[in-house]
């Protein structure tokens, strides 16, 4: 059983620990120096909470955090605040993504407070894809803040207990702050400095874009280590299985910011079972990147292949036998059940039989 549970209520925050900025599981795992695994929940296009629970249950016992995406790719889905509110009820550790595309600073600061009140411990600050990438290209792009000023805004709310305007908060949101990095897009030599900027603005962990080009990532990490950034921030590498060479090609030309080298596509094309090969490729990449100094975990993005996350994590062996939190009965509940059993003294009392006996009892 995971040590990071609240013994009284699975949905409640954990005991605060010194030096921790949140009361969540992900921060504890990372600060203990364990290799963290996070995954991305495919947000439902529905108003049914059961859909969220089902999609989260796939990751049970395999991940330390679940990303709730905020209309990724500018496609509309259930909001990240809503998903996070549902997940925290069940005891999951969601990572709430906030994209600057759809909300201005007033809405965002309100959402941060609301989410934190609902028990969200991790917030990930993103710029967001442009509206042209999604299914509603006629929408107004807001982009009031950018990812950097968003990070700073939430950090100010947490550390200074203030809104951007300077107005006081009575209880600050205690959150672990995340950001995204993409080492695979130009200007390549600026990217490590941009990470430095994000750390300065408040990032405590970062998740990278899909990594398919390990040599390129290695080069990036070398520079990151030279700047000493890996000691100030936990770096989680984004990985994921490709369903086929055709999907890989489509993603390469249609999804902004994903760099897939030709060698990956050739490898997928050459395989008998492309789906299986895609999974194997993902595991191979994990095995390569986990050895790179400064990498603290992986972020598995298996869009529409969520059922493979457990296999990928298991087969790559990154957890080293550790079992992340799983939705299960609390130890306190087990104690109560045992005590009740003890009180009953092994007697089975059937209400119907007892009523029957009472009815035929001669007075």
């Amino acid at each position, binding site marked *: 059983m995971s040590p990071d549970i609240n013994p009284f209520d699975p949905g409640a925050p954990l005991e605060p620990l010194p030096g921790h900025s949140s009361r969540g599981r992900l921060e504890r795992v990372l600060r203990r120096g364990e290799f963290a695994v996070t995954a991305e929940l495919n947000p439902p296009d529905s108003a049914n909470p059961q859909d969220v629970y089902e999609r989260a249950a796939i990751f049970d016992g395999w991940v330390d955090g679940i990303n709730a995406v905020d209309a990724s790719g500018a*496609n509309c889905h259930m909001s990240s605040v809503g998903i996070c509110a549902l997940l925290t009820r069940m005891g999951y550790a969601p990572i709430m993504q906030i994209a*600057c*595309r759809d909300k201005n*600073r007033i809405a965002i600061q309100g959402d941060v407070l609301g989410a934190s009140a609902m028990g969200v411990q991790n917030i990930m600050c993103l*710029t*967001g*894809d*442009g*509206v*042209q*990438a*999604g*299914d509603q*290209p*006629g929408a*107004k*792009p807001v*982009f*009031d*803040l*950018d*990812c*950097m*000023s968003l990070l*700073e*805004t939430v950090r100010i709310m947490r550390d200074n207990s203030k809104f*951007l305007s300077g107005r006081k908060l009575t209880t600050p949101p205690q959150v672990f702050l995340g950001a*995204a*990095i*993409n080492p695979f*897009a*130009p*200007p390549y*030599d*600026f990217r490590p*400095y*941009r990470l*430095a*900027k994000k750390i*300065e*603005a408040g990032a405590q962990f970062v998740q990278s*874009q899909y990594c398919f080009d390990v040599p390129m990532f290695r080069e990036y990490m070398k520079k990151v280590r030279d700047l000493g950034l890996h000691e100030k921030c936990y770096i989680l590498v984004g990985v994921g299985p490709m369903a086929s060479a055709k999907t890989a090609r*489509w993603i390469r*030309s*249609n999804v*902004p*910011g994903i*760099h897939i080298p030709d060698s990956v596509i050739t490898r997928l094309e050459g395989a008998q079972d492309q789906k299986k090969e895609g999974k194997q490729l993902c595991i191979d990449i994990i095995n390569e990147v986990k050895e790179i100094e400064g990498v603290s975990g992986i972020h598995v993005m298996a869009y529409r292949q969520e059922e493979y996350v457990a296999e990928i994590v298991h087969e790559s062996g990154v957890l080293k036998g550790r079992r992340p939190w799983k939705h299960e009965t609390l130890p306190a509940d087990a104690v109560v059940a045992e005590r009740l059993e003890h009180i009953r003294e092994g007697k089975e009392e059937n209400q119907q039989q007892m009523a029957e006996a009472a009815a035929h009892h001669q007075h």
Partner: protein
Amino acid sequence: MADAKPPGEPKIMKGNAAPAAKAATGAFTPSGVSPSRRSRHKYTVRLWAVRNSRFLEWFYNRFADLFLLLHPLWNAIGYGRVERPVTFVERHVKGFLFDCRMCGQCALSSTGMSCPMNCPKQLRNGPCGGVRANGNCEVEPDMPCVWVQAWKGSQNMEKGNAIMNVQKPVNQSLRETSSWLRVTAEAAARREAASKEGQA
């Protein structure tokens, strides 16, 4: 939502991001439309400014000194009264050189003389993750990414390191006002405060 793209080099319609998706909405979509205003079809002058960022930095420093020297004059006429003519000149000069959007809080010195407000996401702190492999913008496929240019420009500048500063969110209430006058007024106020401190 997929754009129908011929195999090989994807066809790019000028300034029209995701043309197929837009056409699918049923509206008439001329080429060269985007949610971010496009004032010009070519980026020649903007790119020239980035290439000559060092010269422009030198020039601006002299220019700012001159403006500060003229502070008593601005003060005599009244900052409020010179605002309109100065804004007019600033809009046209910077509009020509940098495709300036008159955000009123110029960051050109810290962005390698590449105006960050031309970014469709109006990022003021660095490039997003969507920059194309050829260094063009994710949203506007034919536009060189503002931040790829900014990084290039800052490399040439003496104080190019300013690109590492975390910029505050844009104060939207300062739009369409003169950044030159604001900088001058602030510098003058700082100078006065310093001299007062020196006397005390």
